[in-house]
Structures are given as structure tokens and as C-alpha cells.
């Protein structure tokens, strides 16, 4: 989507204001994707107040094959951080949104060796209460090789072998409805690498090309514990 089309879409939605109120640096670096309203499994809009602090919720964005985490940081607030992706260049992570500015979202693909949540299992999770590998509460942990990220600081790597931060997803919060909308993301080149890496698996799950399709106007968000049958607690 080009910028003019993005402007058009923003103008036509309730989140128009949010489109332009985000951190400017992020707005410049983020790829602008069609907004997608976060909904519950039954299709009704997800309210900011319904995002729990115990675990992340998983939603697909901007493509059907790209899983993302929605995290409620609780009493912490997310601060914007200037970061770099070797695939997608420099960007500034967006601040938290919602009534308490504590809701953030990330592409739920470990930037080390690309582990991601699947229906069978997820090696990567938001460890709200901490864990041996996390070292402290409130971090995103990948059990595959022990990488740890801080969702309150743009997904920056804290420990383990991952060389780069998790990639952010931009959210907008509509104060009138208390709803949440995903409006953009950093990671277009990274997504291509992910698709190339997992092509046979993604074809099996989404059909040929299905993983590349935009999610559409809405995208369901479900708790990780429901999304994945097995989630290790490393």
C-alpha cells in the first residue's frame, strides 16, 4: 500500500487521529498496512480492558501468516526506543496505547532463529511472572535458544543469542469505544525472510499464498494459552 492510500484509509476510520498522533519517527519508519480492528474469537470487538496481564494475546497482522503478541504491561509503560533491524533499517518503537498507555504489540517471531507461535506449540511467550530464563518478570522469552526481550523498551534484547530486538506493531486505541486497531508494523523484509524460511509449513496451514494475504478489516486475538496447545515455561 502506498502512502496516499494509507491516508485515505486513515481518514475513513475512527482511528484517523491515532494514525497521525503516533511517534513521528515511528510513523516514518513503519510500513503502513491497512488497519485491522482487534476482535475476540467470536468476532465482537476486543476492549482494551479485556487484555489481561497474565499472558500475551496472539493475533495475525498485517498478513494472515504473521503472528503478533498483544501485551498488557500492567503498571509499566512502554517507552519509545530508537532501534535497528538488519532487514528493515532504523525505526523508533511506538509508545504504549490504551487508558494506561500499557498496551504494546510485537511481531511474535524470534529474531534469532525465527521461532513463532503455532497451534501445536509456542516456544516464545510473554513471561508475565518471570522464569528461570527471563530473569525478571514481564519479559518476552524464546525457549528455543534462550533469547529474552523487554516489551516495555521496544522489544530490545536483554539476554541470549538474538542479535536484534523483536519488531514492533503499531496500535491505536479508540477512547470512545475502548477498541484497539493495528495500524502498521516494522518488518516487511523480515516477513519475506520468514515466508521463505517456512514456506512448506505455511502452505500446509494457509494454502498456497494464503499466508501472504492481508488479514482484512478485523483480526481475532486470543490468549496464547488457547492459541497454542503447549507453551514451555523456560
Amino acid at each position, binding site marked *: 500500500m502506498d502512502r496516499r492510500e494509507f491516508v485515505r484509509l486513515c481518514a475513513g476510520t475512527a482511528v484517523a487521529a491515532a494514525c497521525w498522533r503516533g511517534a513521528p519517527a515511528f510513523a516514518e519508519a513503519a510500513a503502513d498496512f491497512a488497519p485491522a480492528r482487534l476482535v475476540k474469537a467470536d468476532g465482537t470487538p476486543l476492549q482494551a480492558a479485556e487484555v489481561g496481564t497474565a499472558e500475551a494475546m496472539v493475533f495475525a497482522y498485517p498478513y494472515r501468516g504473521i503472528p503478533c503478541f498483544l501485551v498488557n504491561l500492567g503498571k509499566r509503560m512502554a517507552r519509545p526506543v530508537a532501534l535497528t533491524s538488519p532487514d528493515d533499517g532504523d525505526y523508533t518503537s511506538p509508545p504504549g496505547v490504551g487508558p494506561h498507555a500499557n498496551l504494546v504489540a510485537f511481531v511474535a517471531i524470534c529474531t534469532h532463529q525465527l521461532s513463532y507461535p503455532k497451534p501445536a506449540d509456542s516456544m516464545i511467550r510473554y513471561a508475565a511472572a518471570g522464569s528461570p530464563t527471563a530473569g525478571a518478570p514481564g519479559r518476552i522469552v524464546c*525457549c528455543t535458544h534462550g533469547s529474552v526481550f523487554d516489551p516495555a523498551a521496544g522489544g530490545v534484547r536483554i539476554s541470549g*543469542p538474538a542479535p536484534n530486538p523483536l519488531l514492533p506493531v503499531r496500535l491505536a486505541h479508540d477512547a470512545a469505544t475502548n477498541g484497539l486497531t493495528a495500524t502498521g508494523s516494522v518488518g516487511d523484509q523480515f516477513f519475506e525472510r520468514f515466508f521463505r*524460511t517456512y514456506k512448506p509449513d505455511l502452505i500446509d496451514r494457509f494454502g498456497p499464498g494464503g499466508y501472504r494475504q492481508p488479514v482484512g478489516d478485523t483480526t481475532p486475538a486470543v490468549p496464547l494459552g488457547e492459541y497454542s496447545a503447549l507453551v514451555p515455561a523456560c
Partner: protein
Amino acid sequence: MTDQVNRRRFLKLSGTVLAAGPVVLAAGPAALAAGAQPSGNATKAAPFVSTHRTLGLPKPKGPRLVIIGGGTSGLTIAKYAKKEYPQFDVVLVEKRCMYSSCFASNLWYPGIIDLEFLADHSFLDAAHNGGYIHVNATCIGLDRASRTVATNEGDIKYDFLVVAPGISYDYDKIGVHDVGEQIALHQAYPAGFKYPTEHVTIHRKVREFEGGVFIQTVPSGNYRCLPAPYERACLIASVIKHNKLKGKVVILDANPEITIKAPGFHAAFDELYKGILEWHPTSAVTGVDVANRTVKTEFDNYKFDDAAIYPNIRAATLIEELGLMAPPTKSNQKEADIDIRFYNLVGDERVYVSGDSRPMPYSKSGNTSNSEGHYVAKVLAARAQDKDITWTSPQTLCYSMVDAFPKQAIWVDTYYGYDAAKDAITGFKDTKVDNTRSEANGTAYLEWARGLYRDMFKA
């Protein structure tokens, strides 16, 4: 933990090597025959062996980096050296015509994975995705003076060379000295830690086991994959238990204690395999009678119905043949004589040795070689650009499956320290461990291996 390379020392060494090249070339073959090589303490190489033809390769567009060995170390370095410094013209030489990983191979024996899991990874795809050249050939010689590495398919000139040939077995250290006996033992009861066809043999053994005694030996020294013999013993015991066979696994361990993750293995031995698995510590093998299926230790003889005899290991014989071996005072496993932080051969900053031929006391595991490979790629990129590089530790994240029905694993995750005063690698650092077996860990183990494959073979 970190330390800067001494820049002056680096420049001095580079200068020596750069100056040496043209002089030797001018002197011609006579100088080569006389063994003229850049200085260093490594043992002298055998005379340079070559096919006397040049391997057909495109003209390099940048410094040529040749990597000998397409295992975990070589594959990782090939991909990431190109990423770190795209000007590199990378050539990966591997003698196997098909890849199959040593890491995770124990999981095949009880059927947790199939052979595709280990082997459905193409050298061609890795080279295509990584932007380098794969050559299916065997390294046969090295002339460091002219920076030429010889293969059975022809010679290759290099600007930088990485030799990552892995390990060889050292049957002498378990009292099997006769070469005929060594061959018979390896063919009948392979260790399963060197190359894939051994895995096929052990897989057959486990599938065909109908009862009796299966012996798994554990050598002394820094052998490849410390937990693997204990893991394999657990998995064979789990097959015996699952199939309700009248049989047991006997572990003859040269070491006084389980070498890693001891609490997790002891728990599995005691809680899952009582009467099915016997562990005998301080029971170094002193000989094997292949015909009579008997393992000898200092105090006892053990009869077996089938076995996997893991002898001591050493660096691949190629390290010795190419004259890269450290003196016995520096390595008792015939490993390479390299700088322990920057991997270059002592006295030659054009030649590097990585992976399990290294002399450092790192656990010789897939994760170590992979994480080390990321760092060695940075070293090579820095050296090619005459930049400094900060040492970083490899990571040893190591899962062990202690049960197959259902699959349950334990793990340890550790790094290493560097003591600048002693110029030595110190022991484990920042170690995390989970000795409580679980199915979640078992699932993570498979994803761990898939991650390594992705890292080496995908874009």
C-alpha cells in the same frame, strides 16, 4: 569477559604473512617442497599434496574465504561471513554428498524423529540462500605460503581459510591398538558421533534389539556432546521399557560422575529405568574383544549382545595432516594450535580453525559450533577490513531427551569466561539449567534443532 585484540600485534603479524607470500612465490616450487611456511608453533605439515590443477571457480570479486567442512561450524560461518562482509567471495568445501546432522541424531533411534528431520537439508539450498559457492570435494593439502588449499577436485587460492573438519576417534586410548581391531570395532559397534552412516547402523541396532545387554560407553576427556551417551542410554532403555523386553542398558563411564546435567540423568535412571539401566562410574574401557562381544575395564569384563562403543576423540586427522596441530603441551586431543579468542592459527592470521577441532574447553556441541560460527564470521569480517574485534563467548544450550514415551527432556544453557591474566578460557558462566524433565522441554528440543537448521540452510 571481553578483551580487545592487541592492534599492534595484529598489524605486525599481518605484515609478516603478507610479506612472506610473494617471497615464497618468487622462490617457486623448490621453496614449497622445502616446507617454507609462515612461522608458528604448529606441527609441521606433511608435504603439500595437490592434484596440480586449479578448481574451476568464478573470478573472485572480493577476498576469497575458503571454508573446509560443511558441518555446523562451516555452514554457519559461510552464511554469516557473507552477511557480515558481503564483499567476501565464500567457498564452502564439504566432502559428504549429503547432509545429515549429528546433533539430535539420538532422537531418531526411538522414533521421536525420522531421518528426514536430520537430513532434509540441502547444501545447495544453503549456498544459494547464503550467496556463496558449495563445492563437493575433499581437502587433501594445504600450502600456507602460497595460500593454496588443495582438494581432490583441484586447488583453490584463498585470502582467508577456515578449517572446520570436526573430530576423529582415538581408539588407542581405550586400549584398542591394532588397526584391524579398530576397524572391526568401528564397523560393528560404531560410536555414532562422527558421520551419518554410523547413525544408520545404530538405528538398526535399536530397531533390532530383542533383549539382553546393550552397552553404551562414555569416554574420558572433552568428547563430543557430553550428555549424548547418557541420553542415548536413556532412550534405548525407554525402548526396552516400552517394548517390554527382557534387557538392560549398561553404561560404562570413564568418568567418576555424569559429566553434565547429572541430577536430571540420575533422576531418569532412578525413576524411569530401575532394573533396565545400570550406570557404572569410573569404568574406563581398556580393551574390546569384538569377536567375543566383551568390553574390558580395569576390574571387570562385560559381555554384551549389542553396543555402541564411544572411544576417546581427537581433532579430525586433517588438522594433523595439514600441520595445524598444537603440541601435546597445549592439547592432549591433537586439536589445532590457534589463538583461543580469535581462532587464527598461531603465527598466521590467514588460517582459522573452528568447531570441534578447536582446543578450547568448550562443550563440543552443535549449539556451541553454531554460536561460535556467528562470532568467527565477525572475526573474519573484521580481519578482512583490518578492524578490531571484541571477543564474545559461544553459547552451549543443550537439551537431552531422557524419555521417549512420552518425549521428555532436560536442558542446560551456559556461556564461558575469559581470564585475560592467564589468557585462558574459564569454566561455565551465566549457567541456567532445568533438570526437571518435561514434555514441554521435549518439544522445545525439537524446535531447538529446527532453529539450527534454519540458521544454517535458510536465508
